[in-house]
């Protein structure tokens, strides 16, 4: 089933059950900076493929100026956090889940999805696996989707997961529910 609508990144600025407003604002700035770096403006259309087919117009409120680019001098870091922002918004729009928890994973962060908080963190939750590509072709995107899905293939005692790969130049996303 396919759907369409608007994806307003500024929604992240208000935070979510498992994300503080300051962290949400950080993610929305990263996402909008990625899009602006690829010369996209407000209302750019993103196709979503995979388990869910959809099309969204993306909007943001951040002013992306040269200082913003300067503060993101690590392109890899920018792409990773930018993809997280888009992925979380797609999860909110398409799955009904929300981010209920996050945890530290080495030097990074992982996000846990669910409907409501439980007695213990991460109970009855699915993991969000995100991968970002700033500028890539179909081969890059498909390769990244395959790799991510393989990493989260079900095995004994494995956790449910939603995989989202975001490419910013087209822009396009793949969302796969495991």
């Amino acid at each position: 089933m396919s759907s369409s609508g608007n994806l307003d990144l500024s929604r992240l600025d208000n935070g979510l059950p498992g994300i503080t407003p300051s962290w949400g604002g950080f993610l929305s700035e990263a996402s909008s900076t990625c899009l602006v770096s690829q010369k996209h403006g407000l209302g750019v259309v993103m196709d979503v493929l995979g388990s869910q087919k959809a099309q969204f117009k993306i909007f943001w409120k951040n002013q992306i100026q040269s200082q913003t680019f300067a503060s993101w001098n690590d392109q890899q870091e920018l792409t990773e956090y930018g993809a997280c922002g888009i992925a979380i918004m797609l999860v909110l729009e398409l799955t009904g889940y929300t981010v209920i928890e996050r945890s530290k994973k080495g030097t990074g962060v992982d996000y846990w999805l669910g409907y409501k908080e439980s007695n213990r963190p991460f109970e009855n939750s699915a993991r969000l696996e995100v991968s970002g590509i700033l500028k890539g072709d179909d081969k890059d995107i498909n390769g990244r989707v395959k790799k991510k899905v393989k990493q989260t293939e079900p095995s004994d005692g494995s956790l449910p997961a939603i995989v989202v790969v975001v490419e910013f130049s087209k822009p396009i996303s793949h969302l796969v529910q495991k």
Partner: protein
Amino acid sequence: MKSINELHEAAMDLADQAFIARRRGDIDVAITLSRKAYEQELEAAEQLRDDFNAEPSRSVLYRSAASLAMECGETREAERLISIALIGNPPYEIAEELRNLLEQVNFERHLRLEKVDLSSAEFQLSIFGSAVGYGIARSEAFIERIKDLERLIYRTVERKLGREFRERGSTRQSIQDSYSLFLAAPRPGSFAITLILGRQMELPGFEFDISGEVVDEIIECFNLLNNGREEELKNKIPNETYFQNFVGLAKRIAPDGEKVKMVGLTKMRNGEEVRVAFTRKQEQIVSATRSKDDDDEKKGTLVSVQGRLLLADAREVTGKIQLIDENGGKYDIVVPEGMMDDIVKPLWDEVVVVTGIKAGKKIRLQGIDRA
């Protein structure tokens, strides 16, 4: 007593603040906040210590606490927390992530100078990854890095002595004689070796020795690059050509992510060990070489091409090379200053992948690697 959820939530809020402070460059604030986050997360995890059925909560909380302990430099504590998590029944993916974290902890341990005494002109290089065993390493993973490190040392000496960037030709004999790189016998652990930079004899007309200063500079620059602090690195190496050259060589020394997962440098200053665990992967360093040509970048598109490096023209300061692909297709590449001699030349006649900005028919090189 606070609930697990309250403690975990507080820990994550503090960890967010620590991350944002670190990005702002407020390192002391970041360390204080990380420590507070660690204490809260540890308290949350400890409430589930004996509840082996509380998965994935138990293992994820311990993994999160161990990650925060690592941020605070508490490697022994991190090792203990990872072990407690693994004793339980963690889901497969979490167990794998805990093992990866344990590898990092072990590498931190190997960075330490066990029973090794280093002078100011000496430092230790350690590598760890699938190409490295206990006291053994694949030659290319090790030797190529030593060669690049030697190039980087000579460049740093020349820069510190105020010499203009040498685009071609070898290092002056007097510098080679005074700052040659000597290797001590390797040690097991990861694969660790002492590198000795120094004067082996007193040379007439060579009155001062900056070996210690060069070691300090190299380790500090690696630390900045590893932490994504390129702006501070540029302040340290204001000459654009030297900067490009440093980033290009450091990228070659950096971990590839699999065969070599970590590269460590350790020195001794005032009786204290100074360690850099270089974990930033080669592919993550490409963007750092973009500093000079923002206008070109805006006009062009980022491309990646593969072919054998068969033609090179170094008659001008900005060099040119050509790659020939397997179908005979040709790619003309413009090589920025500081890249030809140390970064491009060692790859002569090899099949390489070039990443760069394509504007018109030419590609301006950003990164070059063996295919």
